[in-house]
Structure formats: C-alpha cells, structure tokens
C-alpha cells in the first residue's frame, strides 16, 4: 500500500537531487534540468497530498489537473530558458556556468 509518506520521501529525494545538481553541475543545461527535477518534486508532493485528503472524489482529482497545468507551463518555461542558454552560448561560446561570471563584483 502506498502511503502519503512514500510520496513525501520520493518528493524529498527528487528535490535533494535537484539541489545537488544545481549546486554541483557546471553545465547550464544540466543545472536547468536539475531545476526541473525540483519542480517535479513539488508536483509529486502535490499529487500525494491531493490524494490523501478527505475531500470528495471529484475534488481529489483537482491536484492531478493542477500538475498537468504545471508541467505544461514548465515546458514552455524550459523552452524559454533553453533559448536564453542558446543566446548565452552564441555570445560567450560556452555554457559552463563557472565561466559565465560577468556580474562578478
């Protein structure tokens, strides 16, 4: 039987992997992917909580609908981010985050 706690654990695991990726990865594409992981951790959480509340059946489905919306929006957002990274690559000929440091004080 899958409980709420399983959802939470899966979500936490995904989130931690995401944080690790954001902090440790050098390639901006991979950083972006890690951010997506964190986003999906939230989605998992959302689905879990919506299934284990004591709303009526038709209200429980609401969380899953939300998640679909979120995924759609995230996809659009991702496309945008990739476009930015492409511009970055055009200008600096690199996607390595350590080398993109023009804002250094």
């Amino acid at each position: 039987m899958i409980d709420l706690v399983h959802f939470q654990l899966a979500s936490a695991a995904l989130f931690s992997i995401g944080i690790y990726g954001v902090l440790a990865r050098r390639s901006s594409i991979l950083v972006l992917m890690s951010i997506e992981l964190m986003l999906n951790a939230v989605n998992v959480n959302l689905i879990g909580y919506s299934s284990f509340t004591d709303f009526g059946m038709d209200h429980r489905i609401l969380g899953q609908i939300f998640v679909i919306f979120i995924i759609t929006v995230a996809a659009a957002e991702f496309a945008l981010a990739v476009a930015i990274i492409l511009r970055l690559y055009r200008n600096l000929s690199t996607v390595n985050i350590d080398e993109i440091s023009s804002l250094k004080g």
Partner: protein
Amino acid sequence: MLGIAWSLSWVLPALNLIAFLGALATYRIKKGIVAAGFSLVAIFAAFVVFWFLVSEVLENGFLSDQMTWFQIAETKIIFGFYVDRLTLLLLGLITFVALIVQVYSFGYMKKEPRFGWFFTVNAFFVASMLALVLADNLLFLYFAWELVGLGSYLLIGFWYERRSAAEAAKKAFITTRIGDVALLIGIIVLFKSTGTFQISTIIDYAQSGLIGSETILIASILIFLGAMGKSAQVPFHVWLPDAMEGPTPVSALIHAATMVVAGVYLVTRMLPLFEISSTTMWVVTIVGMSSFLLAACMAMVMHDIKRVLAYSTISHLGLMMFALGCGAASAAVVHLLAHGVGKAILFLCSGNVSHSLDGETNLMKMGGLLKKLPLTAVLFLIGSISLAGIFPLAGFFSKDEIISGVLDGRGWFFVGVLLIGTVLSSLYLARLWILVFFKNSQYQTEVQHQPNVFMKIPLIVLAIPTVVFGISLAQFNNSFFGLHAWFIEYSQHHFNFLIAILSTLAALLGVFIAWVMIFRKFSENHLMMITFKRIEHILIRKFFFDDFYQFVIDKIILIVANMVALLDRKLVNDILVDGLPKLVYSIGRIVRVFQSGQISHYAFAMIFFASLIFAGWWLLVTNT
C-alpha cells in the same frame, strides 16, 4: 463719479506703460526716434490728463477706486488707486518734470547710440513712479517702489561700458535694497496686525488704537528705513552721489526731482501712523537733520559739478524729512515741489555746461562761462536762488514754511540748526555758481557746442514755476491761486516775519562767505587756512562713510563670507556631497567581495538561507 475718476487715474500710468511696451518693441528702429516718440507722446498726454484729474479731484475732494486682484480666504488683495491732494501734487511734479526732461533729453542725447533705449527706460520709470504715488495700498506701492528702483538702476548704468557707471548702478541698487527689505518687513508687520494693505484702513486702525504701540513703533521705523534708502538719507546716502554716473537728464529726473522724493512721499503718506509714536518722529527728525547738515558740508568741497548737486539733493531731502519729523507735512511737501523744480533746473543747466565743454564736469576747470552761456547762467542763478532760499523765489517760501513748522514742532534749538544749514546750502550754491560762471579760470574753457533749442526751451519752461510758485505761495491764506490751501490738507503755518528775515540773512551770509573764500586770498600759514585744510580733508573723504563701508565690506563681510564659504566647502561639499558617495563606495567595496559571479555560489546562498528561514519557522511552529 467713480466711473470717470477710475478711468482718469488709471490712464496716467497706463499711458506710460503702453509707451514703454511700444518703445521696447521699436527702440532699435530708426535710431530710436520711434521709441522716443512713444515716450514723449505718452508723457505729454499724461501731463494733459493730469489737469483733468486736478479738476476732478477739486470737485470731489478725493478719488479712489479699487478692484479685487485675488482673494485668499478672508484676505482680499486689492489693486486700487487713490488720488487726493498730496497725490495730485506729486503727479503734477512727476509729469511736469518728466515731460521737460524728456524734451531736453531729445536734444541732449541726440548723438547717443542707445537713444531709443534711453527713452524706453524713461517711459518705464515714469509709469512705475506714477503707479507708486497712485497706489492706495502698501503692497502695490511696494511693487512700484521696486520697479522704480529697477528703472533707476538701468539708467544709472546707461553707459555700462564704463566701469564706474556699472559699479555705481550696482551700488545704488544694493544700497537701496537694504532699505527696501526693511520696508517690506514693515509692510508685513502692519499686514499681520491689521490684515490689510490699504493705507487708509491701516491709519484708521492705528488712530483708533487697534494696533499695539510696539507694533506701530517697529513698523514705522522699518518703513522709515525704506524711505531712507530711497531718499538717500544718512547713512544710506552713499549711492546718490555715485548715481551721477548716469546721463544728466536722468540725474535731473530721477535723482533729484522724482524717485528720491518717493521716500519723502511715503513718510508723508504714512505720517499719521508715524505721529502716533513719538520715538519714530524723533528718529525722522534726527536722521533728516543729520542728512541736511552732513550733506550740505560735503557739497561745499566737491569738485564735480554734478556731485555738488547730488549732495545738495541729499541735503534738501534731509530738510524735508526734518520737517516731516517735526510734523510739518505741508511745509515738507511744498519744499518737495520747490526743490524738485529748482533742482531739475540746476541739473539740466549743469547738463548744458558739461555738454558745451565736451563732457567736462570738474568745477575747477570751468570758469567765466557767464558770457559764453548767458541763458544757462541766468537760469542756473534762478535755480540756485530758489534753493538757497532767497526772496522771492519758491525755495524762500517753502524754507520759511519749514522753519515755522519746526519752530511749532520742536522749538528754537532746531530752528538754529536749520539756519546753520541754510547758511551752508546757500554757501555751496554760491560757490558753485561763482566757480562755474563768474570767476575766471586759469584753464582755457572753450565752449565747443552751444546748447540746441531742445536744451533751452524746457529750461525756460521749468524756470516759470520756480518764479510763479514762489509768488503764489506768498498769498498764504487767501486765494490767489490759493495754491497753498488748495493742495494741502495738513496743518498750516502762518507767515512769520522774524523767521523770514533770519533765514534771508542766513542765506545771504552763506553767499558772503562763499564770496570771501573764493576771492580773498589768505596766506597758507594763516590759522584759518590750516583749520580749513583739516576740515576740508574730512569733507573730501565724505566723513569717511564710504571708507567705513569699504572697511565693513572688506574686513567683516568678506571674512564672514570666507567662513561661510569654508563651511560650504568642508561641510556641504566635502562631507555631505562628496562624503555620501564615498560612503556608498566603501560599503560597495566590502559587499562586492561576496559577488563571485558564480551562479552556484548564489544558488548555494539562496538555498542555505532559505533552509535557515524554514528551519527557524519550523522551530517556532513546533514550540508553540
């Protein structure tokens, strides 16, 4: 009554204002002839309208009309004109002298490159001067007062290429400005305690005791300070002699006959207020008296013909203030007229003299001009006799009026002072006339140009009132023209033979002394000559007034200014203006260390602090 009255009193300054605007638009065209035409036509029309106004006022006693300019809550700011007999007298003097002077200038300034500009500013000046005497409230009076000051500034600095003229204009403007500030404060003090600027209302309130006596004292002293600045009373007199840098017609119009009497006019107008405070009256008396004597002394030793006349003007303005301080308003105003006309003659004659001698104004280089410029010499003599107070010209009667007024108001001591002043004033005028026209000079005085017709006719016209005015004043209380009773509403004094004889003797004594001093040769070592030299030294240095002001400016004001400048540089500039960015910069230098530019560092900081906040929140929630 009010309809026509309104339009008439309003017409006088409006005509000149229109002329000013017209002249302003055209003063570059055709060498300024058009602008001069505007100005001349306007002043002539104003002079004609003045006579209609006279008949109107004589019928009704006074005219007044007002309109509300704007209103803030209960306070109405009113734009209004008030014409009574005092106003009429001044309007007559202003329009008459301005007309004469402008016709004269037409000849005198003929070769001037800025001919048109001269008439433009003249029209401006006349318009604001007329507004000044017509204004029925202090606020408008103050506006006109400042505009008149501006006109004076522009005309003194007419030859602004000359450094001395530019300096003199600046000096006149700044010196009178000190008085103007006091005047403005005085007006505000009165407004604060009465809630109105209307002169008549303020005087009513003051007379019915609605204004506190301290307020009246303060306000009247402040207003008097303004009058002192404009009328060049000691110690604000220093600007007037320097103002002689302007063209001679300007000196005649502004710095002898009209603008400088604005202060006397103001004091006369506010005299009911001044009279409430005996302290103020004493201040007016003392200031007037000291100006009268000091300026007369200085006039005796000046070497510049126009400067002698300038000091004489200060002296006579002092005499008017003196009379006002003794409560003899009618005498002061009569003397104002007599002096205005007489001094205009003297100035215009001196203009003729220096015009003939190619701009020479040094007395010592003139002499024997009686034969070369006979008309000018005779007219100058008429003006001098009038101002020296010798029978039967205008000055004699007005001075007698003043002496009897002083006798009634203050007693014999002050009459004695006045007689000494009379001796001095006839002395310097006699010296002036003898040196310029009579005594042969060791210098060759070749007359280069004879005065043209524009410079002769106005002078003759100007001499008429000097003679006729005197005679008509002689009919003191009956009504041969009845000039005296006709114009003046204030107290009247009776003709006093003793005083008349004393003042005539004093004046003749002055002439005698001048004669002796010029023609009797004393040896250099004669005790009298040594004393004279000492006195002359002090007088030539003008009682050290200018030196003292220079000292004050150099030592005290400049030191204070330097200290303030230092404060500005160190505190405002270095600490506040430059210090602030420096502070931001140094904070920035510390903070920039944390800006590595590495996104992962930022992300780490973000996550770390977010977790910290979350942990804190968590602890808080679980503990409560």
